[in-house]
């Protein structure tokens, strides 16, 4: 597969872009095939007691009579034109149902990322500098335990501790009423954000610690120290940028993970976003909505992984020689 190599950084980015497009295309086939072709969607939506007339009407609405490829092609064309179909439960275009929710969810993910990334880089670096000392041992044990917990368990524990049972400081649910923006409800955002930060930060911090330890033991850091550079300069100019390389991957994977994690977290807090919309859509068998949300979440996932690969190459010069 020689066409996969060569071309330097620009070539690498182009190849990664093409690969991302191919993956997204296959994802769309998978989403569509699994929702539309497995079994009879009309029956899945209407249930066992559906009358033949209502089954026929819904089949027509979902274009089930046509061959699969035609159905898929129409759906894909709509998708590319920003037409995501009609939500069966709301009887409104999917775009209308989810546009405000998309903003809410994006706000939650961006806020969680903005807090968890610097926090976990700081914890990881500090633990690496204090290797085997109290902070390192305590933080790595705590992070290990937190990393294992399912996020709805974290969320419920936070609710028990901070809003219903032990203390009564924060609201237990965080609905964002239509017409208002998430940032108008600062207090309601605290617990969902905290849950997502706890879900993500342990991984980034652990990778940061491992990466930083490796860099601190490297020859060029020793060289910088022997040159008599102040420790601050050694750490910030020499160690940190190199240690961040592997961390980008993990940050991107974890941000992408947030896109899935919000399903459960938004449900716990009754937060008005695409995650809770997906839970609703699944319960209501609202197939067009499930298809649209699955595509959006998968697209976020693929794009973030793409950005991670590109960022890793850009910050790690020695990887470029392998291109």
């Amino acid at each position, binding site marked *: *597969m020689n066409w996969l190599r060569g071309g330097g950084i620009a070539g690498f980015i182009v190849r990664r872009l093409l*690969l991302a497009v*191919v*993956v*997204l295309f296959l*994802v769309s086939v*998978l*989403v569509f095939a*699994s*929702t539309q072709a*497995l*079994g009879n*969607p009309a029956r*899945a939506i209407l249930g066992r007691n559906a009358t033949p007339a209502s089954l026929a009407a819904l089949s027509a609405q979902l274009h089930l009579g046509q061959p699969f490829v035609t159905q898929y092609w129409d759906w894909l064309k709509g998708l590319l034109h920003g037409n995501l179909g009609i939500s069966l439960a709301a009887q409104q275009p999917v775009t209308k149902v989810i546009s405000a929710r998309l903003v809410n969810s994006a706000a939650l993910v961006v806020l969680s990322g903005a807090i968890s990334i610097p926090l976990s880089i700081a914890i990881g670096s500090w633990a690496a500098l204090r290797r085997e000392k109290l902070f390192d041992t305590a933080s790595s*044990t705590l992070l*290990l*335990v937190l*990393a*294992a*917990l*399912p*996020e*709805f*368990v974290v969320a*419920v*524990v936070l*609710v*028990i501790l901070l809003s*219903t*049972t032990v203390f009564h400081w924060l609201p*237990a649910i965080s609905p964002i009423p239509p017409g208002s923006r998430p940032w108008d409800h600062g207090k309601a955002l605290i617990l969902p954000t905290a849950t997502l930060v706890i*879900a*993500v930060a342990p*991984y980034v911090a*652990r*990778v940061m610690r*491992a990466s930083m330890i490796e860099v601190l033991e490297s020859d060029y850091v020793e060289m910088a120290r022997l040159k008599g550079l102040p420790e601050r300069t050694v750490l910030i100019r020499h160690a940190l940028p190199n240690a961040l390389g592997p961390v980008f991957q*993990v940050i991107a*994977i974890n941000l*992408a*993970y947030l*896109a*899935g*994690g919000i*399903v*459960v977290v938004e*449900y*716990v807090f009754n937060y008005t976003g695409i995650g809770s919309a*997906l*839970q609703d*859509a*699944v*319960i209501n068998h609202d*197939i067009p909505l*499930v298809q649209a949300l*699955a595509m959006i*979440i*998968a697209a976020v*996932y*693929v794009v973030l992984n793409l950005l991670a690969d590109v960022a890793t190459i850009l910050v790690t010069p020695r990887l470029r020689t392998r291109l």
Partner: protein
Amino acid sequence: MNPGTGGAVATAGLELATPPVKPSSLFRRSLRLWRTRIGVALVLILVLLAIFGPYLAPHSPDAFIGAPNSSPGGKAVLGTDYLGQDVLSRFLYGGRSILFMAIIATGIGLIAGVAIGLIAAYSRNAVDDVLMRGMDVIMAFPQIMLALVAVTVIGAHAWVIVAAIALTTAPRVARVTRGTAQPVVERDFVAATEAMGVPRWRILTGELLPNILGPLMVESSLRLTYSIGVIAALAFLGLSPNPNSANWGTMINENEIALSVQPWGVVIPVIALAALTMGTGLMGDGIARTAAGIDRARGEE
């Protein structure tokens, strides 16, 4: 909770040295670490509880024994839930299905993932690319998403949930398997067995597999942790094979609304799920550290 990262981290920098460490001896050695001991103890307690709990339950899990959301006392040691059923009995019944489904799903995902990863690593040609890009497509979905899509279309049957978790576990295992098996494929003893005319599948199972069991043990405990989390989360979202049955995830969902009046219906299953996932997490980390330690010692020899 997070897919895909921990395993790669745990196995990063694992240089494989001969002879391979036997999994049983790796596990025994890892028990020298306190974290492994605590992890194993937690897992054992919860597995025993899940298996034998139903025999210890004072009431049937769906018998109404008092007013809804009543506090502990009288017939109900931990109070009653939102319908007036015994919290303790429902808790004792509620671990079995989660644990069984998680173990079966992780097992299937592991076997499939190891097979795909080994074939990809050994093929060294286009098969490798095709298999691993296929795995990338499945990994473009967060684990819970694919389960949600499957449940929407087919329904929340146990086999659908197990299949969805297995399907999303396999690519993550395949990636680790391929990564650790690749350097082994290049080594002389593999070329030697090839020259002896040993059939390919015997090379995969007899030569490659024993050399990657350490990282695979770490990966399995990690995957089991996530499977438990996802299956419990699905139940919490209202998607379990039998919505009325006792299940820790379902219990948390049902009783959360009455949290300020009768916390036990939520607190007890939350503690159980936290202990179980922490246990598998600690166990995996203990094994990973031991494997890394053995490697480091060998590097210095």
